[in-house]
Structure formats: C-alpha cells, structure tokens
C-alpha cells in the first residue's frame, strides 16, 4: 500500500529559513533524499524537535511534525510512541537542546530504549540565541557570553549516549552526502533509540570548527570510517588502530604494505571498543565516524505494551464493576424515608 515517494514528496511548501550556507541544509537534503528509500509513508512518520535552529527541521518535512519546547522533545516523543507505537518517530535536537537543557530527558530516553531516531546536530554553539558557547564547545571558545574564552570542559555526545545506555551510536558529518543516508538507514533499521551525532557547521557563529577533519584536504588523514568486520584503518590505509592489552589503550600505528596484522577489527557489538573509539582524543587520533556501536535490545514501548496486555489478560473491562470494587454496602429502597 505504500506509494512510492520521491524526495520532493517529503519537502513542505515552507521557505527554509536557515542562514545561507548553514550545515542544516545539507542534513535536510540528505534526510529528504533518504526517506523514500526507508519506505515508511509520510503519514506514519513524525518529526519531533525542541528549540534551536536545528529544531526548526520538522517544518520542512512533509510528515507529521511537532516543534515542542526547549529540550523536551524526547519526552514528547515518548508520549507519542507510547500512545501509538506504529508511528515512526524521529527526534531532531541540537547540542544545547539535547545536552544542556534537555540532557536529563536524553539520558532517560536512551536508557529506556524507546524505538526512535535521535539526530543531534552538533555545531558546538547555541545558534538560535546568537552564538553563546554550548556544552559541547571546546575549552577556550570565545562567544558573547564567554568573551575571554570558555573555561568548562565540554561533553562528548557519543560518550554521554554510551554511558546513558544507548544501544546504537553513530557519528557523521552534515556534508557527508554518501555516508549520512547510509547512517540514517541503519539508524532507522535499528530497533531502539538510535543516537546519531551529526557534526554541523554553523557558518555564522562557529564556522569551520570541524575543519580539522571535515575539510577536503584533511578528511583522508583524520577521518576513521568504522565498518563492522573491517580493520580500523585511515589515511588511505597507511595507518590503523592497535590495542595494547597491557595498558588497555589504543594507539595509532603505521601500516606497511597493507599488512593489517595487529590492527583492530571493528566490531559494532563490542561496547569497550565503542568506548575507545568515542573517547580517543582528536589530534593524536583520527575522528571515528560511522556506526560505532549497535547492540539491539528490547524496546521501551514494546515492554509497556506487553505489560499492558499481560496485566489486562482475563480481566473484565466493566467500569460499573470497577466503581463498585472495594469495601461496599447497599442500602435497600425500603429503608428510605423522605423528610
């Protein structure tokens, strides 16, 4: 019954209002391009967002959409999914929306494992409120609220997600028009909360913060594309990650003549490896991209539905009987005298 859709079917008639050159455009394009391939019909799809530049996203998707309040999209999405588990729910959030004001809800969404996709647009800045530093901004970020540079250490979104109990973690880049659709498809296919961090360039307030690995010239040497079952190599196969069991650390090693002996092989099901890939400091290490961790587990809404069904089994749905439950007595009509 699903009519075949094209990317244009997923675009609304609303004028897109991000700054010209904003990374959000590229993400929107990739999502609209991927939805026909995913195959869920638009009317079964709901985009839920909080507040921020990124959170305007639902207005541009010809699906059901709910632009909620700052940080609370995970909670609204939880109610939607529990009320109707058939809906395909996507949460769009930013680094401020999802990790500052909404950090608590994100934690609980991930630990509960509601079946939905979280796309966290990380631009390391508060775009909508004109450029204050965010919880993912690096130490020393100069912004209107930190004119002398921020002093607090940033949060690593994927590390947070892993710690919170996420079962699917992927990382990608706004402009990665080949990798991004593949990750969206994987995220969608995963049952449970799929957490996708997308490095998104805010051209106005934080331009080029990710250039060290997103720039065309830097990409090869500084991006590590994780593929399940493949050795963890980068720099055109000349470097790889090795594990030292004695110190329980990873190190970058040179690969001579394509010999990957001793190079770690990516295993999406290995949580320890995921932790290592997420936490390795960029600079000495490359930026790990792709599906870093994927280990399906039962979902929250399925458990809720299952319990609702089990607890209801064999019980009569008789409201009048319910009202009469408990300590009761009857007064017969003959006792009644009016005064």
């Amino acid at each position, binding site marked *: 019954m699903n009519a075949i859709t094209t990317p244009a079917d997923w675009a609304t008639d609303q004028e897109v209002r991000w700054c010209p050159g904003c990374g959000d455009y590229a993400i929107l394009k990739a999502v609209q391009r991927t939805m026909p391939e995913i195959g869920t019909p*638009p009317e079964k799809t709901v985009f839920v967002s909080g507040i921020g530049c990124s959170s305007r996203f639902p207005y541009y998707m010809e699906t059901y959409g709910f632009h909620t309040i700052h940080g609370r999209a995970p909670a609204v999405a939880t109610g939607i999914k529990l009320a109707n588990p058939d809906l395909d729910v996507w949460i769009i959030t930013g680094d401020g929306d999802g990790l500052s004001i909404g950090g608590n809800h994100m934690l609980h969404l991930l630990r509960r494992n509601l079946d939905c996709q979280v796309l966290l647009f990380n631009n390391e800045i508060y775009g909508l409120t004109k450029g204050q530093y965010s919880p993912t901004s690096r130490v020393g970020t100069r912004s209107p609220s930190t004119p002398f540079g921020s002093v607090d250490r940033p949060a690593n979104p994927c590390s947070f997600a892993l710690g919170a109990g996420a079962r699917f973690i992927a990382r990608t880049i706004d402009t990665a028009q080949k990798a991004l659709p593949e990750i969206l498809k994987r995220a969608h296919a995963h049952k449970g909360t799929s957490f996708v961090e997308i490095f998104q360039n805010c051209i106005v307030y934080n331009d080029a913060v990710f250039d060290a690995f997103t720039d065309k010239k830097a990409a090869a040497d500084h991006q590590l594309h994780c593929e399940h079952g493949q050795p963890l190599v980068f720099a055109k196969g000349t470097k790889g990650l090795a594990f030292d069991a004695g110190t329980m650390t990873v190190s970058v090693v040179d690969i001579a003549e394509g010999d990957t002996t001793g190079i770690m092989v990516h295993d999406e099901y290995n949580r320890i490896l995921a932790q290592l890939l997420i936490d390795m400091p960029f600079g000495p290490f490359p930026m790990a991209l792709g599906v870093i961790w994927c280990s399906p587990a039962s979902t929250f809404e399925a458990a*809720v539905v299952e319990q609702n069904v089990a607890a209801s089994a064999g019980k009569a749905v008789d409201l009048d009987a*319910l009202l009469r439950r408990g300590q009761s007595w009857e007064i017969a009509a003959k006792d009644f005298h009016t005064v």
Partner: protein
Amino acid sequence: MATALQTAFDNTHPAKTHAETMVVRFAGDSGDGMQLTGGQFTLSTALAGEDFATFPDFPAEIRAPQGTTFGVSAFQINFGAGGIETAGDEPDVLVAMNPAALKVNVGDLRPGGLVIIDSGEFSARNLAKAGYATNPLEDGSLARWQVMAFDISRQTLTAVKAFGLGNKEALRCKNMWTLGLALWMFDRSRAPLIEWLRTKFSKNPHLAEANAAALNAGHAYGETAELDGPLKQFAVDAAEAAPGFYRTVTGGESLALGLVAGAKLAGLPMFFGSYPITPASPILHALARLKEFGVTTFQAEDEIAAIASAIGASYAGSLGVTSSSGPGIALKGEALGLAIITELPLIIVNSQRGGPSTGLPTKTEQSDLYQAVYGRNGDAPLVVLATRSPSDCFEVAIEACRLATQFMTPVMVLTDGYIANAAEPWRVPDMASFEPFPVTFHTELHPEGHINPYQRDPDTLARIWIKPGTPGLTHRIGGIEKGVATGNINYEADNHQAMTDIRRDKVANIARVLPPQTVDQGSECGRLALVGWGSTYGPIRKGVQRARARGLDVAHIHLRHIWPLPANLGDLLRSYDRILVPEMNTGQLKTVLRDQFLVDARPLSKVSGQPFKIAEIEAAIEAALGERA
C-alpha cells in the same frame, strides 16, 4: 457529601451513652500504624451504616525519630447520623499511644472529652522526648478531660505471647489492640476486620493470628473493664442514607476512577504521565493498576517530562493526563503554554499542599489558585475546575475530560491533600447515567493545498484534532505562533492579536455552556454570601447551616468552575450586601472575584495546614453580620 441523609432515629440503649455523631482521633508515633488503625476503623464505620468523614494527618518524614512530637501521626474520623461534612472540629475521644501524641493532640480534645492513653509508653525517656517536664498523668494537667490510662503495651504483649514474636514485633500489634478496644466502644463487628487481617497477612498467617489475638484482646478488655470508669460504650446513630450501592472512597481513588470514566465517555485511551510527589501520588498508584481500561501510566523522569509525554500522547490521539502538586505544577508551566498554543486536550491534576517551595508537603492548603488561573508566561488561558470532596472528584474528573476534548484545551483540576487522603461514603453512580461525549478525529481530506490544523468549529472555537497516521493530513504544530488561516508559522502582529483573542474567547465562552451557578443554601440575595471552592465546602456548609438555624441571613455559594467562572456569578454576587470568601490561602479566589466582577469580596484566610473548623466559619459569619448591624 454524596449521601443524602435524614434525621437520626433513636436507638438508644440504656447501657450506652447515646450520641448522634462522634469524633474520634487516633494519634501515635508514625511507626505505630495509626493511619492503618484509622482506615480500618473507617471501614467498620461504613459497614455499620454510619455516615463519616476522615482526616488523616501525618508527618512529612517517613520515619521521624521515635517518640518525638514531629513524628506524631494522627487520624480523625467524624461519624454517625446524617449530614457529616467535615472530619469534625474537636475530638470527643482521643487515643494517644505515647506522650508526644498526647502533647500534640490533647489541646484539641473537647473539654470533658475522653482520652485513652497507653501508660506503658510514659517512661521518663519518652516524656523527655516529648518535652514534658513532669508526667501529665500525674501532675493534674489533664484535669479538664476524662482520662483512661492503662498499659496497652503490656496488654498487647500478653495477648500475643503465645505466638512467640520478638518484643518489637509483638509491640507492633498494639494498634490492633487499640482498634479492638475502639470496636468494643462503638459496638462494631470484629469479623470483617479479622477477615481483612487474614488477607493482609496471607503470606504470614502467624502474624495474622497474632494481630487478630491483639484485636480480640482489646475488645475483651473493654468488655471486662470497670464499667463505672470513664471507659464506656457509645451508641452512635446510623445514617439514613438514600438507597443505593455505597463504598468508601478517598479523593485519590475517586479522581482516578473519574479519569477512567471520562476517557471512556470520550471514547479514548488514557495516557497518564506523572512524577511522584505528596499528596498527588495516590492517583498514579491507582491508575497503574487499571491497564485493562485502556490506561497507560508512565512514571517520567521529572514533572516536565511527565506533562511533555502527556502532550505527546494527546497529539497522538490519546487523552493525555498529568498529575502533581504545586512544586511539580510550577515545573510544568512552560509545557502548559505549549498545550495551550497547540490547542491539545490535556488534563492537569494539582493535589495542592502547603507552599511555597517544598512548604508543608503533608498539610493541606488551597494556595495554588493564582498559579492555576494566572501562572504562565504569555496570555495563556486554560480551564480550571475544583473538587470539593472525595466523592466529588469523580464528577469533576469527568467534567475535565469533557471540557478538554470538546474544546481542545488543557483543563486543570484543583484538589488538595485533605481531599486526596480523606475517605467518605460514596453512593456509586451508574455509568449509564452519564452522557457520553465521543471524540471524532478529523480525517476528511482537504480539497486543495494543505490542511489547516487550526481550522475550528465556529461555535466552540475548538480546533480539529488530527491523529498522526491519518493519510493526506500531514501537518506541523508547535509552540511558535501559527497563522489563523494556514496553521503555518506566522509572526505578524494582526495574526498574533487574532490568535490570542481566539484562545481567550474559546476558554471564556465555555461559561456559556456551564450550568448557571446555584446557591447551595439560603436565598439568591440577602445580607451575606459565603463563597467557597474546593475542600472548604464541608465546614462552610456546616457553618452556614448552623448560622441559618439560628436565624442569620447568610447564603452559601460553592464554585466548581473556577475558570471560566459561571456566566451568572457576577449578578448573583452583586445581589448580596456582603461577600465573604473563606479560603485556605491568603485570599486568592477573593482577588479573582474582585477582578472579574468588581465586587467587594472579603477574605477569610487560614493557612495553618488544617481545614477550617465549623466554629471558625460560624464566628466569621457572626462577625460579618455583626459588623454591619
């Protein structure tokens, strides 16, 4: 009260002291099981066919240090023949299980009233803990009352000796011993309670029998005690109630049942998102057990997530409900605005407690009326209803479901800690007596272009409700102002004016469909009207009744609809010379009435954490009328 009660019939027994109604307070350490004793005594009262109202009063601490005055837990019940509206002003009988309970409660006892004391707890150490310099059993300070002191602790230990319990465990049966004595005093049957003990301790029959032995021993003690002492049997009149099926119900239970009934009348599954808080939690607990009625409960990570999830559920086509108490409602404020601007049905229950901040979590107050009516950013109107008693919660909850779904609006239900925990007899209604109000979701395709989700019924101004999943009607809603004609984001000045007006009018116009405000007692004009809302209903009703019986010209008006106010209320209020508004706050409804109707409403405030006493209301009536004379 739900019961229509008539005058008492005389069943005086020569050997018993006859009373029409009786107020008994059980007080002890919070570990003494006084709430359980009170609850079971209430049950036996119901089974004896008496009308009643209860007032559980317990400390905020779960286990306050033993023997201290702040660890005292009390349960008061007023019972007997008809027309009981409050838990009673002054106890006739006080049961004090330790010095601290005596110290905190004896001052409330009617002069000449009976106090039953466990003298076994009156050690020097316990007296000191309660702050008694001398033993009140010996220093004559209890002379105003009839004192019956005996060693309940030792009596209990003897009674349960055969069961070989440890000393601590054995002493835990003290409350059942006391209950047994109370059953004897009021000539109640022990059988249902022994049955209850056996069910309660079904996994531990040994404990069930020990408790039953304690109960029987307490009862036997009464029977064999010196009859010329102050301990005696009372014959309390039974109520003559309207025929029907009755049960005891607390406000928490009744509200939960009303929500289930309301969702059913609307034809919707219910989603209940909540975060635990005293005294709101009983509603969550009750609903969590009712899954077969299409109820999904969700214990969220905080109150914001609780309301946000309920909004999400309403958006998806369920009836979203959230429940909390003042501090939690404060957290929900921003999300309330979202529900208002997205015009989704939503029910928010506020079980009020003493504030501000954490305030007095276990004490009752009505001080969140401003918060309910005014407490949001922007011009953000919603409907506010208030419950007046445990059984009234049922109808109010149904009314909330009706208004929320018919007008696509959030509805706040104000109840309070007193109502939530108090029990009363409830004449159970037939569901067939309620008119269903089934919701129809919008499914009709738009002829061309896009559906405007803010398309509305010209009469009610309610917008259409489209369930996600409906083909051809995809649309976006959200917290940014939307165009009247398109539903798309719209920042234009005229549009915001128009949308603000619509939101205001939609809620204000509900007044047109509300039944006109009636006068609970008295005439529709006169020298003085008492205007009340919420749980002050009982004492105001009784106070006005007594004043009227003495010939005073006073009327009682009770409001269920706080916002919008009934359409005829302004004219009605203006037909009295004076308006007095008794409230358990510093005058919040008073302010709203002044604001809405420019009437000279005067406050009668009480924020001591305790309900009004009937006598306080009576005195205020006299003062108000006297002042004028």
